[in-house]
């Protein structure tokens, strides 16, 4: 049974690619993911903002603690040295490359052009097989229109393309008004793949303190319907690798997305909850299903329920609403 998949210009042994999570920080759990059958591994994201925040926090609270008060020249012990977060990330990348045979994809979230380039170049030099740009942008300015927002992504990609040789994967949010067109523009600007979709931190409101407070909920299988549709719409209509992320917990979830046309399936929450070994369970489920269905390779069924494979556009977009209603209609044989 052939599970080999083409992803970002590389042949990988299975379509299951754990997405950015703490599991990739730890060599042991990364090895367990590889042993369980991961096709590639995406590292946790290096956030430029977090790097800066840590630099500033450590500077203020470890290096520059003095206040001039007579009884306390410092407040926190600062004698342990440790790696700068970027160096730490690069070390982690190098260690993963040494320990694993599967490709390792680094992930980056920048906020400034300088930060993106500097960090990306160091990541390339440290041997990453590809780079995923975790582009995290919430447009708030009413005067910034969708064209300007899209331009940000294209400009960034072009900027990095000019500095890097390695494949670049774009992780996108679901809120583009014309996603297929956006994906095409990214393709032309030099991307190698897209991952659909980013999950955002969403603030909640505390009604006692009258302040915002963070909230983060693990994904559920219900969330996969959103990427599934867009994967189905994009499959076969772009040369970019397609990665599906959000809400993939079981073999059934993964199979659905492969049927929709994804090249790779990213898992995160399910692995955090059940451990790296869960990947093996998902893979076994895919194999079992393929066996039952008589498929020998992924390519035999990938995209079978995609836009291209559907007889008309209505199957995936407009009529899907009607079909749901239709399931409640009476049988023609029943007298009403």
């Amino acid at each position, binding site marked *: 049974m052939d599970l080999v998949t083409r992803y970002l210009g590389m042949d990988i042994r299975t379509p299951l690619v754990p997405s950015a999570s703490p599991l990739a920080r730890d060599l042991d759990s990364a090895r367990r993911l590889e042993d369980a059958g991961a096709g590639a591994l995406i590292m946790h994201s290096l956030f430029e903002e977090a790097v800066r925040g840590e630099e500033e926090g450590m500077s203020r609270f470890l290096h520059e603690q*003095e206040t001039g008060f007579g009884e306390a020249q410092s407040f926190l*012990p600062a004698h342990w040295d*440790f790696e*700068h977060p970027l160096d*730490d990330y690069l070390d982690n990348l190098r260690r993963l490359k040494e320990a694993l045979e599967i490709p390792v994809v680094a992930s980056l979230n920048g906020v400034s052009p300088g930060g993106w380039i500097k960090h990306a170049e160091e990541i390339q030099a440290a041997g990453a097989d590809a780079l995923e740009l975790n582009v995290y942008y919430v447009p708030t300015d009413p005067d910034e229109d969708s064209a300007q927002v899209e331009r940000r992504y294209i400009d960034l990609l072009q900027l990095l393309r000019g500095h890097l040789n390695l494949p670049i994967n774009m992780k996108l949010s679901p809120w583009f008004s014309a996603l297929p067109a956006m994906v095409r523009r990214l393709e032309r600007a030099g991307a190698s793949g897209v991952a659909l979709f980013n999950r955002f931190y969403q603030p909640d409101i505390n009604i006692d303190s009258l302040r915002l407070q963070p909230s983060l909920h693990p994904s559920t299988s219900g969330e996969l319907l959103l990427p599934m549709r867009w994967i189905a719409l994009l499959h076969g209509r772009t040369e970019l690798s397609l990665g599906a992320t959000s809400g993939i917990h079981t073999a059934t979830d993964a199979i659905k997305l492969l049927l929709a046309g994804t090249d790779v399936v990213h898992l995160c929450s399910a692995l955090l909850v059940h451990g790296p070994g869960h990947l093996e369970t998902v893979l076994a489920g895919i194999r079992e299903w393929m066996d039952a269905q008589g498929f020998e390779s992924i390519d035999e069924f990938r995209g079978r329920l995609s836009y291209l494979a559907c007889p008309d556009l209505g199957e995936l977009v407009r009529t899907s609403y009607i079909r749901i209603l239709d399931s409640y209609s009476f049988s023609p044989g029943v007298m009403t």
Partner: protein
Amino acid sequence: MSDTPTLVTLDGNQAAAHVAHLCNEAIAIYPITPASPMGEWADEWSSLGRTNLWGTVPEVVEMQSEGGAAGAIHGAIQAGALTTSFTASQGLLLMIPNLYKIAGELSPLVLHVASRSLAVQALSIFGDHSDVMACRGTGFAMLCSGSVQEVMDLALIAQAATLEGRVPFIHFFDGFRTSHEVAKIAELSADDMRAVLDAEAIAAHRARALTPDRPVVRGTSQNPDAYFQGRETVNPWYRALPDIVQGVMDRLGARTGRRYRLFDYQGHPEAERVVLLMGSGSGAVAETVDHLAARGERVGMIRVRLYRPFSSTHLLQALPRTTRALAVLDRTKEPGAGGEPLFKDVTTALAQAFMDGRLAQLPRVLGGRYGLSSKEFTPAMVKAVFDELAAPRPRQGFTLGIHDDLSGSSLDWDPTFRVDANRGVTACVFYGLGSDGTVSANKNSIKIIGEATAHHAQGYFQYDSKKAGAVTVSHLRFGAEPIQSTYLIGDGDADFVACHQEVFLGRYDMLAKARAGGVFLLNTQAGVDEAWGRLPREVQEQIQAKGLRFFVVDAYGIASDKGLGRRINTIMQLCFFAIIGILDLAEARARIEEAVRETYGRKGRALVERNLAAIATALEGLHEVDVAGLPVTGHRRRPVVPAEASAFVREVTAPLIAGRGDDLPVSRFPADGTWPLGTAAYEKRDIALEIPRWEPELCTQCGKCPLVCPHAAIRAKVFPSEGLEKAPAGFMHAPVRGRDFPAGWRIAYQVAPEDCTGCGLCVAVCPIRDRRDPGRKALNLTPDRAFHDRQKPAWSFFLGLPEYDRRALQPSKIKHAMILQPLFEFSGACSGCGETPYIRLATQLFGDRMVIANATGCSSIYGGNLPTTPYATNPDGRGPAWNNSLFEDNAEFALGMRIAIDQNRRQAEDLLRTLSGALGGERVQALLEAAQDDEAGIHEQRHRVTALKRDLAGLDRPEARRLGGVADYLVRKSVWSIGGDGWAYDIGYGGLDHVLASGRDLNILVLDTEVYSNTGGQTSKATPLGAVAKFSAAGKPREKKDLALMAMAYGDVYVARVAFGAKDVQTLRAFLEAESYPGPSLILAYCPCIAHGVDLSNNLRQQDLAVAAGHWGLLRYDPRRLARGENPLHLDSKDPAIPYRDWALTETRFSVLTRTHPDLAERYLRQAQADVESQSFLYRQLASLAVKKAGTPPEGA
């Protein structure tokens, strides 16, 4: 002689810790200023795995108090370990009972003491010998170091001697002057230590260990038949000890070339006048002796190194036979004694020698006191002593360094006297902001000069007692000869004066320090052409009069440009080297760059880059201003306090504020430590770069801004509209909202512009945004200086408005409570402090009837550190009465107050009853049964008491006179015990527990910062699991103690856990309920602190997150609910709403562990998550338990 020694630049504490850590195995510690750094060094080295001489890592254990540390070292030494500890002052006093035991059992150990004043009429963190002198009777040997080099050497000498002689040692040196002085010294190597320590003595110590393999009994009780003889058995050890110590000194001398004697003589070989003393003051005396002897004067000095056992034999060997007059200087005071201890020891020794015939002629011996609490001790003062020794009728029991116009004890000195030692020394003074890195840069400069040149270097740093906007003054000296100037750089002595913060020019007369022809460097954002014009007139005058060269640099501009914020240290440091020219500039730059790399290490790579960029351009911004012929046109500095201040404030407080307290004579000071309230309002430190601007038209008048203000610098007042025509232009007000207030009245939320620290919490809490401009709130920080200046008269006008009638307010509403006048204002606490809003709130609610016992710690420092006091009075003259007893006894201290107040009240009640015939039964009954549970009730009772006192004055009966003296106690008094978690959870827990169990009506407010904040963030039992703190560098390994649950177990204690930043109304309710509860109340208040590694502008958010994460569940346990058949426990926060890590990792104390020990951090975070969930479950269960009503069977029975 050993190999060439390694030269190191370090301070006295590090020198002691270096030897102590290498020579010991078990180290028990507890933080106390100025000794804390010794424990911190030891803990740091052990946590990094540094081994001792025998290849093991010493175990460092933090105890709950110094008493605990003393117990632990006693146990460790008995069980055969090599043991040490570090302490000072009150900590040493707490150890005394064990010191007797340790010495009585001839147990060898060394206790290193950074000697410090004792709390008497006031606490002082500074240096003198009061603490060690209180240990004279313990049986400990006492060895004194007077310099950083001596600290390292004598630490080893003490260690070797105690092992050989079996008598335990106190090795002491002067707090701050030596403990914190940075100097270039020769380091003792491990080989040096091995060579000096006697291995057989160590083996013998181990052989005496208590062990079941060779069991013995120690610590018996002895009766009259045995005890006395037993006490005399130790005499041979004490007789042998001086020679043992001298032997060790000789061994060390042979190895290092540094030779010490028990009594070291220096001076003219045939001296007639001699000064004898111990400690750092000997540096100033030595310089004076050299100076005078070089001029042919027959003077000399004796440094006392071994004070106990006191060897008169060795003293006589040191004293020149030509001595006619001897002054013995004591750095301590023993009131009521016939002289201070060292004086008496010396006098006795000489008298005995004279009687025995060992001394042919008895010199005249004078005793004098000097240097208490680090009071300056200079060669000029020493000269005065030598002059006094030559006087025909010299004064006995003189004082030095003060002007004693009360008892006439003080010697006058000539402040212009200078010694030869000052020549050839380059002296530099730097005025810096505490947080701008000036001190660390100067420490590094000393290191650079020490390492890169043959010069000797010395640095001493004056710190502030303020925590916000603290000022530091660095004193650096370097020169070809060893520097023993153990005093500040004096007026006219500085070759170089730097001012790192322009605003200080208006406050401090720093150019008084400059010598003629010296250099003045100013960090200013004014250009080279404008800089002169911005200087105060007094500064311009001194620059011209002294012919100073004047340099300017815009270090803030460079720092900001390079991404360093306001961190100007490396820029100013390079400018210093460029101007002073002590070493090649390229080398100076290279060494500063090297220090930057070393300081920031791998983790700070971006900071290294930014600092290097700043260093690269620093000198481009340095310019010399050609001052020749520039006119003196600047404004005069404004007076320190306004002319209308009280005489006491003008004559005493003002000089203290201005840094001229040394000039105040004794008679100006209160004899019993009693000081007036409300003086912090005079300081006007004006440290905020931005202050809040109120937008009356947006404001909904919720009152949250004054509630969160740590400095009571934004206030609310409701007032009639009459008289507003006189209001200054900047005074803003609006119609007061709500039917609770009279129609037509106005409200103002007014900032005190010169008292605000700019923390921004008021803006952070403001819930109102302009719908048209969401960036604009009803309060916004503004840097607008014109607005700032307009607010000064507005604030004065606001203060003049009448206070609103307290009876008409509903204190359970935030808006109403915040109209109450704060009686705690403008303290020296950190900007954004998490503690002070709770204290301010308590004073608003109960300040006019509060008596406060305050545990030592942050709250006693910002609450009562001179020059001013933040507790204030209301227009009736009432306000919180406050006292700080000790660190460990605060709950008991408050209980004592409660007992006294209750006794007085009972006496008043009894006398009322006795006088009921004369006063009228109905009236007496009204006084006795007055309901005083609200403002109106208290107000009416005060009226009754006023009338009573008036009428009592007309009654000629002894009972009436007695009742007049106690009648005020008929008005309810609110007793508060306030302190931090170090007190409540650790050192004072036993007392706290006892007071909770007492059933008495008092209120305990625990300001829980989860570390010892005041001494620099050491671990307490309140520190949470996994938090990094000093003494928990790898994260606290166990969870926080649940003090609330422990207190609730008593059943009759009111308990509340509050966090005003999470739920302000709950805090308010808890304070009101606690105070009204007629038994013990415990309020545990969550206080974000700078020690958490968060910027305190996020104070409120951190409280909110701590509650949301379940770390700090809000609750109130009110035993009164039981009587109503309700569960007494009420939970005021929900189950954890966010993951624990989402709160924890926003604070450096937790997040740093994920970088230094990632696996451990992850384990702790997971465990903490499980803990908060199980805690939450437990509290839910407790809060939902059915309550058994009296006389009824429990539900379901």
